[in-house]
């Protein structure tokens, strides 16, 4: 955004929060635990963030003008396993180089536990932290951070370049302004974490973050309501970018489990969505009723043929050529045009998991 003063500066809120009932002397994590025990309810119930019932119409946005295309290329097309992250304590976008060294050393140390090491030997990992500038939508969003780990395999030939074996990112796009502003100083909120690569490295990276920034990682599932939002969001793009297909997949708890997938012709899917939008008078926002009407329409069309109650099962996956999302928190974004809209929706899911 043009109005941003300095893109690299970590947004910090200088105004202290006026919430007498809470003390920030503890870490965020222990605070959550403490609140739970003292007030007898889970931290999630205290959250001010609510699930929205309507959203602005997502417009395909050419972000290549603001964001380095090389950075985008690193994010699109890979499948990411999502997690949520509680706010990071004393994280600075200016310190990225030092974090790179620290994480590389941490990884090497963890990997070599119990193995005799030659002194002065070159570390097996090269870590690069990069700030992806321009993805943030508002001044309160912290800039996205991309982490890449290159490593040499044990059998690599002499002089062979290290390969990219793991990548991940921490992001916040159009986060809830009220929540972000209520953040105490020294905390940076990058609630959405995506990882792609070996599970063992993901675990190590998470534990390094948890130790260094006193935060907590948890798995982020995408519930069926959000999958429906994504299906509608992608379908709505069809006139601008051909979505090629809209595929919905359900799992029915029969014995053995039955997978039902429905691949809809892109034009027909869009015409159905458009007719629902026309019906409710083409406003600037999309209501959740319209989204569920769209999915219900497709479900009842299926029911008419097969008489199977899809509501007995769960919607597990939606995909189009623009991207795919799985219930268990796996996501693939193939088009940079829709990247910010999808990330904004996922940021919202992650923020709902934050302790307050």
């Amino acid at each position, binding site marked *: 955004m043009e109005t941003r003063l300095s893109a690299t500066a970590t947004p910090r809120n200088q105004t202290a929060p006026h919430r007498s009932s809470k003390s920030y002397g503890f870490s965020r994590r222990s605070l959550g635990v403490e609140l739970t025990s003292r007030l007898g309810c889970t931290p999630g119930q205290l959250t001010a963030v609510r699930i929205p019932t309507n959203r602005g119409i997502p417009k395909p946005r050419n972000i290549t003008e603001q964001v380095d295309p090389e950075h985008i290329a690193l994010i699109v097309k890979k499948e990411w396993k999502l997690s949520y992250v509680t706010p990071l304590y004393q994280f600075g976008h200016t310190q990225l180089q030092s974090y790179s060294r620290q994480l590389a050393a941490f990884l090497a140390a963890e990997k070599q536990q119990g193995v005799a090491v030659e002194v002065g030997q070159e570390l097996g990992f090269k870590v690069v932290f990069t700030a992806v500038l321009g993805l943030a939508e508002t001044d309160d969003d912290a800039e996205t951070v991309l982490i890449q780990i290159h490593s040499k395999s044990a059998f690599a030939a002499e002089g062979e370049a290290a390969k990219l074996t793991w990548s991940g990112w921490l992001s916040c796009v159009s986060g809830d302004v009220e929540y972000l502003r209520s953040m105490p100083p020294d905390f940076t909120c990058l609630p959405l974490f995506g990882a792609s690569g070996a599970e063992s490295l993901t675990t190590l990276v998470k534990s390094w973050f948890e130790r260094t920034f006193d935060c907590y990682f948890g798995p982020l599932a995408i519930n069926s309501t959000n999958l429906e939002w994504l299906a509608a969001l992608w379908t709505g793009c069809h006139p601008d970018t051909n979505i090629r297909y809209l595929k919905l997949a359900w799992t029915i708890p029969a014995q*053995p489990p039955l*997978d039902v997938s429905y691949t809809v012709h892109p034009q*027909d899917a869009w015409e159905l969505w458009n007719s629902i939008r026309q019906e409710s008078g083409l406003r600037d926002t999309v209501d959740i009723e319209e989204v569920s009407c769209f999915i219900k329409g497709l479900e*009842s069309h299926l029911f008419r*043929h*097969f008489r199977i109650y899809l509501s*007995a099962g769960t919607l597990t996956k939606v995909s189009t050529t623009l991207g795919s999302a799985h219930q268990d928190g796996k996501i693939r974004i193939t088009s940079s045009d829709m990247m910010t809209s999808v990330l904004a929706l996922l940021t919202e899911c992650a923020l709902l998991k934050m302790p307050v």
Partner: protein
Amino acid sequence: MDDSTKQVLRQIIRRIPLNKLQNMLSKWEHLSKKQLRSLEFTQPKWLLCDNLLSICEENDLSMKHVTELEIIYRIDHPAQGSWNVCQLIDPEEEAVTADLLHFKQLFKAHLRGLISHVSVKTKKHEDGAIWIRIAWGDNFTQPNHLKPTYVVHHLQTPYVFVSGLTMKHKPLLHQALVLSAHYGGIKDVHLSGRCLTALRDLLMRQYKQVFPVKHPRLLLERSPLPSNPNIQMEHAKHAENRLQMAAEAFGEGILPKLETAVYKLETRFRENGNGMLGRREEPFRGVVKFASSNLLESLKYCVSSGMASAPVTPLLSSITQKGRNYFVITDKGPGASHTPGPNI
């Protein structure tokens, strides 16, 4: 033994799990008892394979013998790769009396007449089916034994099961089959799956079927102390009804193991009430795929548990009734080209 024979043998050995290898080699009958005993099956597979190769070289075995091992293994483990089903149509008089030897000779002769480099090997299975292994070449190349086509045919039935066939060789195989089995033509049944026996059982109705009866059977399990006899009775009646419907549509006991069913929908979008796409005449296009480790079992469960409403829609019961798992659904109804209408 030349290099390609060795390569094929290595590939076959690689595919056979170590615990089944001994059994397969003794069934193969090309190694002496002494040679078989000399092989150590606790060795790593590559080492075992090297030893086996040197024995085969000693016995002077050729490609013909090596491919025999593959057939034996495939016959014992048919659930590998995907099988497609074809149906021979318009039988001639000789079709009924065809015997195995005659069919074999004719098939080989016809196929060799169509394509110059082709290697055909046949074996009769205990259940009477003839197994044919075809390695295809073309005018300039030798048959490729690494990617063979398998054909299974039960004489006196119109069904042919094919696995690993490319589009290029399809017309050749079809022509050879039609000519040697004395039929007028061949068509695709639109049934496919991994489990060969399941496809056969489904088509030949070799599973326990249930037919509509006038006097419903008694439910086996009945709770001893009904809290409210009327409600219990009502529920039991519904449950019994669902079970009966499910069994009528999909059969009883162990059902043939199908993995998928695909429906191409080209029907109009109709939605009760709020008039979405109300005046639209064009079909609403889409493809619906059902997948499960045992599809018929899953569908039956859906119906009997109430996750699908009874009676079973003809679209789903057509899988067993018509013996196919690929359908194109249009609004024109049953009259149109062999596709069942939605009937709803």
